[in-house]
Protein backbone atom coordinates (compact mmCIF):
# COMPACT_ATOMS: atom_id res chain seq x y z
CA UNK A 1 0.00 0.00 0.00
CA UNK A 2 1.55 3.28 -1.04
CA UNK A 3 1.57 6.09 1.54
CA UNK A 4 -0.55 8.35 -0.63
CA UNK A 5 -3.43 5.91 -0.70
CA UNK A 6 -4.02 5.70 3.02
CA UNK A 7 -7.59 6.83 2.66
CA UNK A 8 -8.31 4.67 -0.37
CA UNK A 9 -7.15 1.59 1.53
CA UNK A 10 -10.05 2.30 3.87
CA UNK A 11 -12.41 2.80 0.99
CA UNK A 12 -13.96 0.22 -1.23
CA UNK A 13 -14.79 2.91 -3.76
CA UNK A 14 -14.73 6.66 -4.04
CA UNK A 15 -16.80 8.34 -6.73
CA UNK A 16 -16.60 12.02 -7.47
CA UNK A 17 -18.56 14.02 -10.00
CA UNK A 18 -19.64 10.93 -11.91
CA UNK A 19 -21.62 11.75 -15.03
CA UNK A 20 -23.18 9.26 -17.39
CA UNK A 21 -25.31 10.23 -20.33
CA UNK A 22 -27.01 8.47 -23.19
CA UNK A 23 -26.74 11.07 -25.91
CA UNK A 24 -28.36 14.25 -24.58
CA UNK A 25 -30.11 12.42 -21.74
CA UNK A 26 -28.12 12.67 -18.51
CA UNK A 27 -28.76 9.62 -16.35
CA UNK A 28 -26.22 10.26 -13.62
CA UNK A 29 -25.50 13.87 -12.86
CA UNK A 30 -22.22 14.70 -11.05
CA UNK A 31 -22.71 12.05 -8.41
CA UNK A 32 -20.44 11.69 -5.36
CA UNK A 33 -20.28 8.52 -3.32
CA UNK A 34 -17.91 6.85 -0.91
CA UNK A 35 -18.26 3.31 0.35
CA UNK A 36 -15.95 2.09 3.10
CA UNK A 37 -14.61 -1.44 3.48
CA UNK A 38 -17.09 -3.66 5.21
CA UNK A 39 -19.84 -1.13 4.71
CA UNK A 40 -23.16 -2.35 3.31
CA UNK A 41 -24.86 0.33 1.24
CA UNK A 42 -28.27 -0.15 -0.35
CA UNK A 43 -29.35 1.98 -3.27
CA UNK A 44 -33.09 2.48 -3.69
CA UNK A 45 -34.88 4.33 -6.41
CA UNK A 46 -37.68 4.13 -8.91
CA UNK A 47 -37.12 2.34 -12.18
CA UNK A 48 -35.10 4.48 -14.55
CA UNK A 49 -33.61 6.68 -11.83
CA UNK A 50 -30.12 5.57 -12.78
CA UNK A 51 -29.27 3.09 -10.04
CA UNK A 52 -28.39 0.21 -12.33
CA UNK A 53 -26.52 2.65 -14.55
CA UNK A 54 -24.46 3.67 -11.54
CA UNK A 55 -23.71 0.05 -10.69
CA UNK A 56 -22.67 -0.71 -14.26
CA UNK A 57 -20.38 2.30 -14.29
CA UNK A 58 -18.78 1.14 -11.03
CA UNK A 59 -18.37 -2.34 -12.50
CA UNK A 60 -16.51 -0.84 -15.43
CA UNK A 61 -19.12 -2.15 -17.85
CA UNK A 62 -20.10 1.22 -19.30
CA UNK A 63 -17.95 4.22 -20.16
CA UNK A 64 -18.49 7.40 -18.13
CA UNK A 65 -18.67 10.90 -19.54
CA UNK A 66 -17.23 12.75 -16.59
CA UNK A 67 -15.95 12.47 -13.06
CA UNK A 68 -13.78 9.92 -11.40
CA UNK A 69 -14.13 6.43 -9.95
CA UNK A 70 -11.40 5.32 -7.61
CA UNK A 71 -11.83 1.66 -6.79
CA UNK A 72 -8.77 -0.31 -5.75
CA UNK A 73 -8.83 -3.68 -7.47
CA UNK A 74 -11.53 -5.14 -9.64
CA UNK A 75 -15.06 -5.07 -8.23
CA UNK A 76 -17.07 -8.28 -8.21
CA UNK A 77 -20.65 -8.31 -9.45
CA UNK A 78 -23.66 -10.50 -8.76
CA UNK A 79 -26.39 -9.88 -11.32
CA UNK A 80 -30.10 -10.43 -11.13
CA UNK A 81 -29.65 -13.58 -13.24
CA UNK A 82 -27.07 -16.03 -11.95
CA UNK A 83 -25.15 -15.99 -15.26
CA UNK A 84 -23.53 -19.35 -14.62
CA UNK A 85 -21.85 -20.92 -17.63
CA UNK A 86 -23.98 -23.97 -18.41
CA UNK A 87 -21.00 -25.84 -19.89
CA UNK A 88 -18.85 -25.53 -16.78
CA UNK A 89 -19.24 -27.42 -13.53
CA UNK A 90 -19.90 -25.45 -10.37
CA UNK A 91 -16.28 -25.23 -9.26
CA UNK A 92 -15.23 -24.19 -12.78
CA UNK A 93 -17.88 -21.49 -12.70
CA UNK A 94 -16.72 -20.21 -9.35
CA UNK A 95 -13.08 -20.13 -10.44
CA UNK A 96 -13.83 -18.28 -13.70
CA UNK A 97 -11.15 -15.65 -14.13
CA UNK A 98 -9.64 -16.47 -10.74
CA UNK A 99 -5.89 -15.88 -10.85
CA UNK A 100 -3.40 -17.77 -8.73
CA UNK A 101 -2.71 -21.35 -7.76
CA UNK A 102 -5.10 -24.19 -7.00
CA UNK A 103 -8.37 -22.67 -8.27
CA UNK A 104 -10.33 -25.84 -7.55
CA UNK A 105 -9.44 -25.80 -3.88
CA UNK A 106 -10.32 -22.14 -3.48
CA UNK A 107 -13.55 -22.55 -5.44
CA UNK A 108 -14.40 -25.51 -3.21
CA UNK A 109 -13.87 -23.42 -0.10
CA UNK A 110 -16.13 -20.70 -1.51
CA UNK A 111 -18.83 -23.25 -2.36
CA UNK A 112 -18.64 -24.64 1.17
CA UNK A 113 -19.26 -21.12 2.43
CA UNK A 114 -22.52 -20.89 0.49
CA UNK A 115 -23.56 -24.38 1.53
CA UNK A 116 -22.88 -26.15 -1.76
CA UNK A 117 -19.60 -27.82 -0.86
CA UNK A 118 -20.86 -31.22 -1.99
CA UNK A 119 -21.81 -30.09 -5.51
CA UNK A 120 -18.38 -29.18 -6.95
CA UNK A 121 -18.72 -31.26 -10.10
CA UNK A 122 -22.42 -30.77 -10.67
CA UNK A 123 -23.86 -28.83 -13.61
CA UNK A 124 -25.67 -25.51 -13.17
CA UNK A 125 -28.79 -26.92 -14.81
CA UNK A 126 -29.34 -29.12 -11.76
CA UNK A 127 -29.60 -26.16 -9.41
CA UNK A 128 -32.64 -24.30 -8.12
CA UNK A 129 -32.80 -20.54 -8.55
CA UNK A 130 -31.60 -19.90 -5.02
CA UNK A 131 -28.76 -22.38 -5.31
CA UNK A 132 -27.62 -20.88 -8.61
CA UNK A 133 -27.58 -17.43 -7.04
CA UNK A 134 -25.53 -18.81 -4.16
CA UNK A 135 -22.96 -20.10 -6.66
CA UNK A 136 -22.90 -16.64 -8.26
CA UNK A 137 -22.25 -15.21 -4.81
CA UNK A 138 -19.40 -17.67 -4.26
CA UNK A 139 -17.96 -16.72 -7.66
CA UNK A 140 -17.95 -13.07 -6.62
CA UNK A 141 -16.53 -13.60 -3.12
CA UNK A 142 -13.79 -16.04 -4.11
CA UNK A 143 -12.11 -13.09 -5.82
CA UNK A 144 -11.85 -11.38 -2.42
CA UNK A 145 -13.12 -8.10 -3.88
CA UNK A 146 -12.79 -4.75 -2.13
CA UNK A 147 -16.10 -3.79 -3.67
CA UNK A 148 -19.04 -6.13 -4.16
CA UNK A 149 -21.78 -4.93 -6.47
CA UNK A 150 -25.17 -6.60 -6.15
CA UNK A 151 -27.63 -5.80 -8.92
CA UNK A 152 -31.01 -6.92 -7.55
CA UNK A 153 -29.61 -10.39 -7.01
CA UNK A 154 -32.59 -11.66 -5.02
CA UNK A 155 -35.36 -10.13 -7.09
CA UNK A 156 -36.15 -13.32 -8.98
CA UNK A 157 -36.23 -15.56 -5.91
CA UNK A 158 -39.27 -16.64 -3.94
CA UNK A 159 -39.90 -14.88 -0.63
CA UNK A 160 -38.52 -17.59 1.67
CA UNK A 161 -35.41 -18.19 -0.42
CA UNK A 162 -34.86 -14.45 -0.50
CA UNK A 163 -34.87 -14.22 3.28
CA UNK A 164 -32.39 -17.11 3.51
CA UNK A 165 -30.19 -15.32 1.02
CA UNK A 166 -30.34 -12.16 3.09
CA UNK A 167 -29.00 -14.01 6.11
CA UNK A 168 -26.28 -15.66 4.07
CA UNK A 169 -25.16 -12.45 2.37
CA UNK A 170 -25.03 -10.56 5.64
CA UNK A 171 -22.92 -13.30 7.19
CA UNK A 172 -20.54 -13.49 4.21
CA UNK A 173 -20.10 -9.74 4.01
CA UNK A 174 -19.32 -9.62 7.72
CA UNK A 175 -16.66 -12.28 7.23
CA UNK A 176 -15.04 -10.98 4.02
CA UNK A 177 -15.51 -7.27 4.68
CA UNK A 178 -15.97 -5.99 1.14
CA UNK A 179 -17.71 -2.69 0.62
CA UNK A 180 -21.15 -3.53 -0.78
CA UNK A 181 -23.43 -1.62 -3.06
CA UNK A 182 -26.81 -3.34 -3.31
CA UNK A 183 -29.15 -2.04 -5.97
CA UNK A 184 -32.70 -3.02 -5.12
CA UNK A 185 -36.37 -2.18 -5.48
CA UNK A 186 -37.18 -3.82 -2.21
CA UNK A 187 -37.42 -1.38 0.70
CA UNK A 188 -37.58 -4.18 3.28
CA UNK A 189 -34.49 -5.78 1.82
CA UNK A 190 -32.62 -2.50 2.08
CA UNK A 191 -33.68 -2.06 5.70
CA UNK A 192 -32.77 -5.63 6.59
CA UNK A 193 -29.31 -5.54 5.08
CA UNK A 194 -27.86 -2.07 4.82
CA UNK A 195 -25.74 0.05 7.11
CA UNK A 196 -26.63 2.96 4.92
CA UNK A 197 -29.53 3.47 2.52
CA UNK A 198 -29.32 5.84 -0.40
CA UNK A 199 -32.35 7.03 -2.31
CA UNK A 200 -31.56 8.03 -5.84
CA UNK A 201 -33.67 10.39 -7.90
CA UNK A 202 -33.00 12.13 -11.22
CA UNK A 203 -29.42 10.96 -11.42
CA UNK A 204 -28.34 12.15 -7.99
CA UNK A 205 -28.49 10.81 -4.47
CA UNK A 206 -31.54 12.58 -3.09
CA UNK A 207 -31.20 11.43 0.50
CA UNK A 208 -29.38 8.97 2.67
CA UNK A 209 -30.04 7.23 5.96
CA UNK A 210 -27.53 5.67 8.27
CA UNK A 211 -28.18 2.83 10.67
CA UNK A 212 -27.60 3.88 14.27
CA UNK A 213 -24.58 2.58 16.14
CA UNK A 214 -26.64 -0.12 17.84
CA UNK A 215 -27.42 -1.66 14.50
CA UNK A 216 -30.96 -0.33 14.42
CA UNK A 217 -32.60 0.18 11.03
CA UNK A 218 -31.29 2.96 8.83
CA UNK A 219 -34.73 4.35 8.16
CA UNK A 220 -38.36 3.51 8.64
CA UNK A 221 -40.22 1.77 5.89
CA UNK A 222 -42.82 4.53 5.65
CA UNK A 223 -40.24 7.23 5.35
CA UNK A 224 -38.41 5.42 2.54
CA UNK A 225 -41.62 4.66 0.70
CA UNK A 226 -42.62 8.32 0.94
CA UNK A 227 -39.30 9.33 -0.53
CA UNK A 228 -39.84 6.86 -3.33
CA UNK A 229 -43.16 8.50 -4.05
CA UNK A 230 -45.38 5.71 -2.70
CA UNK A 231 -48.34 6.81 -0.59
CA UNK A 232 -48.60 4.59 2.47
CA UNK A 233 -51.40 6.21 4.45
CA UNK A 234 -54.32 4.83 2.54
CA UNK A 235 -57.14 7.33 2.30
CA UNK A 236 -60.50 5.64 2.61
CA UNK A 237 -63.12 7.72 0.91
Amino acid at each position, binding site marked *: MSPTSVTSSENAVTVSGLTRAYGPRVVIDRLDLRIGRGEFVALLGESGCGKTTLLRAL*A*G*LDPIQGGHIDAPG*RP*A*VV*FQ*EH*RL*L*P*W*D*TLWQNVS*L*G*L*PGADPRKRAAAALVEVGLGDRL*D*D*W*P*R*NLSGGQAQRVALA*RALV*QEPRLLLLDEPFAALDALTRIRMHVLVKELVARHQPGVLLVTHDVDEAIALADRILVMRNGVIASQHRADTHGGPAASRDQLLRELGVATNLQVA
Partner: protein
Amino acid sequence: MDGRVSNVDYVIQQEYRAPATPTPARNASAIAKPGLKPNLIVLSWIAPVVLIVVWEALAQAGWLSPQVLPAPSKVLRTAWKLTLSGSLLNDLGVSLLRAAAGFAIGGSIGFILGTLVGFSRIAEALIDRSVQMIRAIPFLALVPLVIVWFGVGEGQKIFLVSLGVAFPIYINTTLGIRQIDPKLIELGRVQGLSTLQLIRRIILPGALPSILTGVRYSLATAWLALVVAETVGAQSGLGFLAMDAREFLRTDVIVLTIVIYALIGVAADSIARLLERKLLAWHPNYGKGTRS
Protein backbone atom coordinates in the same frame (compact mmCIF):
# COMPACT_ATOMS: atom_id res chain seq x y z
CA MET B 1 -31.62 -6.51 -38.81
CA ASP B 2 -30.42 -8.98 -36.28
CA GLY B 3 -27.33 -11.09 -36.42
CA ARG B 4 -28.78 -13.99 -38.29
CA VAL B 5 -27.13 -15.33 -41.36
CA SER B 6 -29.38 -15.12 -44.36
CA ASN B 7 -30.61 -18.12 -46.33
CA VAL B 8 -30.26 -20.54 -43.53
CA ASP B 9 -32.02 -23.40 -45.17
CA TYR B 10 -30.34 -26.38 -43.62
CA VAL B 11 -33.24 -28.22 -42.19
CA ILE B 12 -30.99 -30.28 -39.99
CA GLN B 13 -29.68 -27.15 -38.43
CA GLN B 14 -33.13 -26.04 -37.43
CA GLU B 15 -33.62 -29.41 -35.96
CA TYR B 16 -30.41 -29.87 -34.04
CA ARG B 17 -28.86 -26.60 -33.13
CA ALA B 18 -28.99 -25.90 -29.44
CA PRO B 19 -31.80 -23.44 -28.90
CA ALA B 20 -32.72 -21.74 -25.68
CA THR B 21 -36.09 -23.35 -26.05
CA PRO B 22 -35.82 -26.83 -27.49
CA THR B 23 -37.66 -27.28 -30.77
CA PRO B 24 -40.65 -29.56 -30.62
CA ALA B 25 -39.03 -32.01 -33.05
CA ARG B 26 -36.03 -32.53 -30.82
CA ASN B 27 -38.22 -32.73 -27.78
CA ALA B 28 -40.46 -35.30 -29.29
CA SER B 29 -37.59 -37.58 -30.25
CA ALA B 30 -36.02 -37.12 -26.84
CA ILE B 31 -39.23 -38.29 -25.28
CA ALA B 32 -39.84 -41.07 -27.76
CA LYS B 33 -36.40 -42.67 -27.57
CA PRO B 34 -36.26 -43.79 -23.95
CA GLY B 35 -39.77 -45.13 -24.53
CA LEU B 36 -38.49 -47.55 -27.18
CA LYS B 37 -38.51 -50.70 -25.13
CA PRO B 38 -36.25 -53.62 -26.17
CA ASN B 39 -39.11 -55.52 -27.77
CA LEU B 40 -39.93 -52.48 -29.89
CA ILE B 41 -36.30 -52.38 -31.04
CA VAL B 42 -36.60 -56.02 -32.08
CA LEU B 43 -39.83 -55.09 -33.84
CA SER B 44 -38.14 -52.29 -35.74
CA TRP B 45 -35.59 -54.75 -37.17
CA ILE B 46 -38.18 -57.17 -38.53
CA ALA B 47 -38.88 -55.32 -41.77
CA PRO B 48 -35.24 -54.89 -42.87
CA VAL B 49 -34.41 -58.50 -42.06
CA VAL B 50 -37.46 -59.80 -43.90
CA LEU B 51 -36.53 -57.66 -46.89
CA ILE B 52 -33.05 -59.15 -47.05
CA VAL B 53 -34.33 -62.69 -46.62
CA VAL B 54 -36.86 -62.20 -49.43
CA TRP B 55 -34.18 -60.66 -51.61
CA GLU B 56 -31.91 -63.65 -50.96
CA ALA B 57 -34.72 -66.12 -51.64
CA LEU B 58 -35.70 -64.44 -54.90
CA ALA B 59 -32.09 -64.44 -56.04
CA GLN B 60 -31.57 -68.09 -55.07
CA ALA B 61 -34.76 -69.10 -56.88
CA GLY B 62 -33.47 -67.40 -59.99
CA TRP B 63 -36.27 -64.83 -60.09
CA LEU B 64 -33.74 -62.03 -59.77
CA SER B 65 -31.08 -61.91 -62.43
CA PRO B 66 -27.60 -61.64 -60.85
CA GLN B 67 -26.96 -58.91 -63.44
CA VAL B 68 -29.72 -56.80 -61.96
CA LEU B 69 -29.36 -57.53 -58.26
CA PRO B 70 -27.03 -60.23 -56.93
CA ALA B 71 -27.99 -62.14 -53.80
CA PRO B 72 -26.87 -60.64 -50.49
CA SER B 73 -24.82 -63.78 -49.87
CA LYS B 74 -23.04 -63.24 -53.18
CA VAL B 75 -22.25 -59.64 -52.20
CA LEU B 76 -20.85 -60.90 -48.89
CA ARG B 77 -18.68 -63.48 -50.66
CA THR B 78 -17.40 -60.79 -52.99
CA ALA B 79 -16.61 -58.59 -50.01
CA TRP B 80 -14.64 -61.41 -48.45
CA LYS B 81 -12.73 -62.12 -51.68
CA LEU B 82 -11.87 -58.48 -52.26
CA THR B 83 -10.79 -58.13 -48.65
CA LEU B 84 -8.48 -61.13 -48.97
CA SER B 85 -6.94 -59.77 -52.16
CA GLY B 86 -6.38 -56.46 -50.34
CA SER B 87 -7.96 -54.34 -53.05
CA LEU B 88 -11.07 -53.50 -51.03
CA LEU B 89 -9.16 -52.25 -48.01
CA ASN B 90 -6.80 -50.35 -50.27
CA ASP B 91 -9.61 -48.56 -52.11
CA LEU B 92 -11.47 -47.96 -48.88
CA GLY B 93 -8.35 -46.44 -47.33
CA VAL B 94 -7.81 -44.16 -50.31
CA SER B 95 -11.41 -42.96 -50.12
CA LEU B 96 -11.30 -42.36 -46.38
CA LEU B 97 -8.05 -40.46 -46.75
CA ARG B 98 -9.59 -38.19 -49.38
CA ALA B 99 -12.62 -37.57 -47.23
CA ALA B 100 -10.45 -36.83 -44.20
CA ALA B 101 -8.19 -34.45 -46.13
CA GLY B 102 -11.14 -32.61 -47.66
CA PHE B 103 -12.90 -32.48 -44.33
CA ALA B 104 -9.84 -31.07 -42.59
CA ILE B 105 -9.24 -28.41 -45.22
CA GLY B 106 -12.86 -27.41 -45.78
CA GLY B 107 -13.68 -27.64 -42.09
CA SER B 108 -10.76 -25.39 -41.16
CA ILE B 109 -11.68 -22.81 -43.77
CA GLY B 110 -15.34 -22.86 -42.74
CA PHE B 111 -14.46 -22.64 -39.07
CA ILE B 112 -11.97 -19.78 -39.47
CA LEU B 113 -14.24 -17.73 -41.73
CA GLY B 114 -17.25 -18.51 -39.54
CA THR B 115 -15.37 -17.39 -36.44
CA LEU B 116 -14.26 -14.15 -38.08
CA VAL B 117 -17.75 -13.35 -39.29
CA GLY B 118 -19.27 -14.36 -35.96
CA PHE B 119 -17.03 -11.94 -34.10
CA SER B 120 -16.78 -8.98 -36.37
CA ARG B 121 -19.35 -6.97 -38.28
CA ILE B 122 -16.57 -5.75 -40.55
CA ALA B 123 -15.53 -9.31 -41.36
CA GLU B 124 -19.18 -10.08 -42.00
CA ALA B 125 -19.45 -7.18 -44.43
CA LEU B 126 -16.30 -8.30 -46.22
CA ILE B 127 -16.86 -12.04 -46.30
CA ASP B 128 -20.45 -13.07 -45.80
CA ARG B 129 -21.99 -11.90 -49.06
CA SER B 130 -19.35 -13.63 -51.16
CA VAL B 131 -19.69 -16.84 -49.21
CA GLN B 132 -23.48 -16.78 -49.52
CA MET B 133 -23.21 -16.20 -53.27
CA ILE B 134 -20.88 -19.15 -53.72
CA ARG B 135 -23.09 -21.20 -51.47
CA ALA B 136 -26.04 -20.53 -53.76
CA ILE B 137 -24.32 -22.72 -56.36
CA PRO B 138 -25.10 -26.40 -55.90
CA PHE B 139 -21.50 -27.41 -55.42
CA LEU B 140 -21.85 -30.51 -57.56
CA ALA B 141 -22.60 -28.22 -60.50
CA LEU B 142 -18.97 -27.17 -60.27
CA VAL B 143 -17.70 -30.66 -61.08
CA PRO B 144 -16.93 -29.98 -64.77
CA LEU B 145 -15.14 -26.75 -63.91
CA VAL B 146 -13.18 -28.41 -61.14
CA ILE B 147 -12.08 -31.15 -63.53
CA VAL B 148 -10.82 -28.50 -65.95
CA TRP B 149 -8.87 -26.90 -63.09
CA PHE B 150 -7.47 -29.96 -61.37
CA GLY B 151 -7.88 -32.81 -63.87
CA VAL B 152 -9.19 -35.98 -62.31
CA GLY B 153 -6.40 -36.32 -59.75
CA GLU B 154 -6.49 -36.06 -55.98
CA GLY B 155 -6.81 -32.27 -56.12
CA GLN B 156 -10.22 -32.42 -57.75
CA LYS B 157 -11.61 -34.81 -55.15
CA ILE B 158 -10.22 -33.04 -52.14
CA PHE B 159 -11.38 -29.69 -53.51
CA LEU B 160 -14.93 -30.91 -53.98
CA VAL B 161 -15.09 -32.43 -50.52
CA SER B 162 -13.65 -29.25 -48.98
CA LEU B 163 -16.22 -27.16 -50.78
CA GLY B 164 -19.08 -29.30 -49.55
CA VAL B 165 -17.78 -29.29 -45.99
CA ALA B 166 -16.88 -25.61 -45.64
CA PHE B 167 -20.39 -24.15 -45.92
CA PRO B 168 -22.25 -26.03 -43.21
CA ILE B 169 -19.36 -25.49 -40.81
CA TYR B 170 -19.16 -21.82 -41.73
CA ILE B 171 -22.83 -21.15 -41.24
CA ASN B 172 -23.16 -23.05 -38.00
CA THR B 173 -20.02 -21.54 -36.51
CA THR B 174 -21.25 -18.02 -37.28
CA LEU B 175 -24.67 -18.83 -35.93
CA GLY B 176 -23.27 -20.46 -32.81
CA ILE B 177 -21.16 -17.45 -31.95
CA ARG B 178 -24.01 -15.03 -32.62
CA GLN B 179 -26.35 -16.98 -30.39
CA ILE B 180 -24.19 -16.64 -27.31
CA ASP B 181 -25.93 -14.76 -24.54
CA PRO B 182 -24.33 -11.29 -24.40
CA LYS B 183 -24.89 -11.39 -20.66
CA LEU B 184 -22.37 -14.20 -20.37
CA ILE B 185 -19.83 -12.20 -22.34
CA GLU B 186 -20.45 -9.30 -20.00
CA LEU B 187 -19.88 -11.65 -17.09
CA GLY B 188 -16.56 -12.68 -18.63
CA ARG B 189 -15.52 -9.05 -18.69
CA VAL B 190 -16.60 -8.55 -15.07
CA GLN B 191 -14.55 -11.59 -14.06
CA GLY B 192 -11.55 -10.04 -15.77
CA LEU B 193 -11.10 -12.55 -18.59
CA SER B 194 -8.69 -11.65 -21.37
CA THR B 195 -9.98 -11.82 -24.93
CA LEU B 196 -8.31 -15.18 -25.39
CA GLN B 197 -9.80 -16.54 -22.17
CA LEU B 198 -13.17 -15.14 -23.19
CA ILE B 199 -13.01 -17.09 -26.43
CA ARG B 200 -11.83 -20.28 -24.76
CA ARG B 201 -14.09 -20.26 -21.72
CA ILE B 202 -17.26 -18.65 -23.05
CA ILE B 203 -17.50 -18.17 -26.80
CA LEU B 204 -16.28 -21.51 -28.13
CA PRO B 205 -18.11 -23.66 -25.59
CA GLY B 206 -21.24 -21.62 -26.21
CA ALA B 207 -20.96 -22.05 -29.95
CA LEU B 208 -20.06 -25.73 -29.75
CA PRO B 209 -23.56 -27.23 -30.04
CA SER B 210 -24.08 -25.33 -33.25
CA ILE B 211 -20.60 -26.13 -34.57
CA LEU B 212 -21.10 -29.84 -33.94
CA THR B 213 -24.38 -29.69 -35.84
CA GLY B 214 -22.36 -28.24 -38.70
CA VAL B 215 -19.82 -31.05 -38.37
CA ARG B 216 -22.52 -33.65 -38.51
CA TYR B 217 -24.17 -32.14 -41.52
CA SER B 218 -20.87 -31.63 -43.30
CA LEU B 219 -19.84 -35.26 -42.77
CA ALA B 220 -22.79 -36.28 -44.89
CA THR B 221 -21.93 -33.66 -47.50
CA ALA B 222 -18.29 -34.74 -47.55
CA TRP B 223 -19.29 -38.27 -48.27
CA LEU B 224 -21.68 -37.25 -51.03
CA ALA B 225 -19.01 -35.06 -52.62
CA LEU B 226 -16.56 -37.91 -52.53
CA VAL B 227 -18.94 -40.36 -54.21
CA VAL B 228 -19.49 -37.93 -57.06
CA ALA B 229 -15.84 -37.02 -57.39
CA GLU B 230 -14.70 -40.65 -57.45
CA THR B 231 -17.40 -41.70 -59.86
CA VAL B 232 -16.46 -39.02 -62.36
CA GLY B 233 -12.87 -40.06 -62.63
CA ALA B 234 -10.51 -42.00 -60.44
CA GLN B 235 -7.84 -44.66 -60.57
CA SER B 236 -8.44 -45.80 -57.02
CA GLY B 237 -10.99 -45.53 -54.25
CA LEU B 238 -14.46 -46.96 -53.72
CA GLY B 239 -15.95 -44.96 -56.57
CA PHE B 240 -13.30 -46.32 -58.90
CA LEU B 241 -14.06 -49.83 -57.69
CA ALA B 242 -17.71 -49.32 -58.60
CA MET B 243 -17.02 -47.76 -62.01
CA ASP B 244 -14.47 -50.43 -62.81
CA ALA B 245 -17.01 -53.11 -61.87
CA ARG B 246 -19.56 -51.49 -64.15
CA GLU B 247 -17.23 -52.08 -67.12
CA PHE B 248 -17.36 -55.80 -66.36
CA LEU B 249 -21.00 -55.85 -65.29
CA ARG B 250 -19.94 -56.96 -61.81
CA THR B 251 -23.17 -55.94 -60.13
CA ASP B 252 -22.07 -57.65 -56.92
CA VAL B 253 -19.08 -55.30 -56.60
CA ILE B 254 -21.25 -52.28 -57.37
CA VAL B 255 -23.78 -53.25 -54.71
CA LEU B 256 -20.92 -53.87 -52.31
CA THR B 257 -19.52 -50.37 -52.77
CA ILE B 258 -22.97 -48.87 -52.29
CA VAL B 259 -23.39 -50.78 -49.06
CA ILE B 260 -19.96 -49.68 -47.87
CA TYR B 261 -20.77 -46.06 -48.67
CA ALA B 262 -23.91 -46.40 -46.59
CA LEU B 263 -22.11 -48.08 -43.69
CA ILE B 264 -19.46 -45.39 -43.57
CA GLY B 265 -22.11 -42.70 -43.66
CA VAL B 266 -23.80 -44.32 -40.67
CA ALA B 267 -20.46 -44.69 -38.88
CA ALA B 268 -19.60 -41.03 -39.46
CA ASP B 269 -22.95 -39.97 -38.10
CA SER B 270 -22.50 -42.17 -35.04
CA ILE B 271 -19.11 -40.62 -34.38
CA ALA B 272 -20.60 -37.16 -34.62
CA ARG B 273 -23.39 -38.14 -32.22
CA LEU B 274 -20.86 -39.59 -29.82
CA LEU B 275 -18.90 -36.34 -29.96
CA GLU B 276 -22.07 -34.44 -29.17
CA ARG B 277 -22.80 -36.63 -26.18
CA LYS B 278 -19.25 -36.34 -24.85
CA LEU B 279 -18.68 -32.65 -25.49
CA LEU B 280 -22.19 -31.48 -24.66
CA ALA B 281 -22.69 -33.47 -21.48
CA TRP B 282 -23.71 -30.21 -19.82
CA HIS B 283 -26.50 -29.62 -22.33
CA PRO B 284 -29.98 -30.77 -21.36
CA ASN B 285 -30.71 -31.87 -24.95
CA TYR B 286 -27.60 -33.98 -25.41
CA GLY B 287 -26.04 -35.06 -22.16
CA LYS B 288 -27.56 -37.72 -20.03
CA GLY B 289 -27.17 -38.22 -16.33
CA THR B 290 -26.67 -35.38 -13.96
CA ARG B 291 -22.93 -35.42 -13.44
CA SER B 292 -19.95 -35.55 -15.77
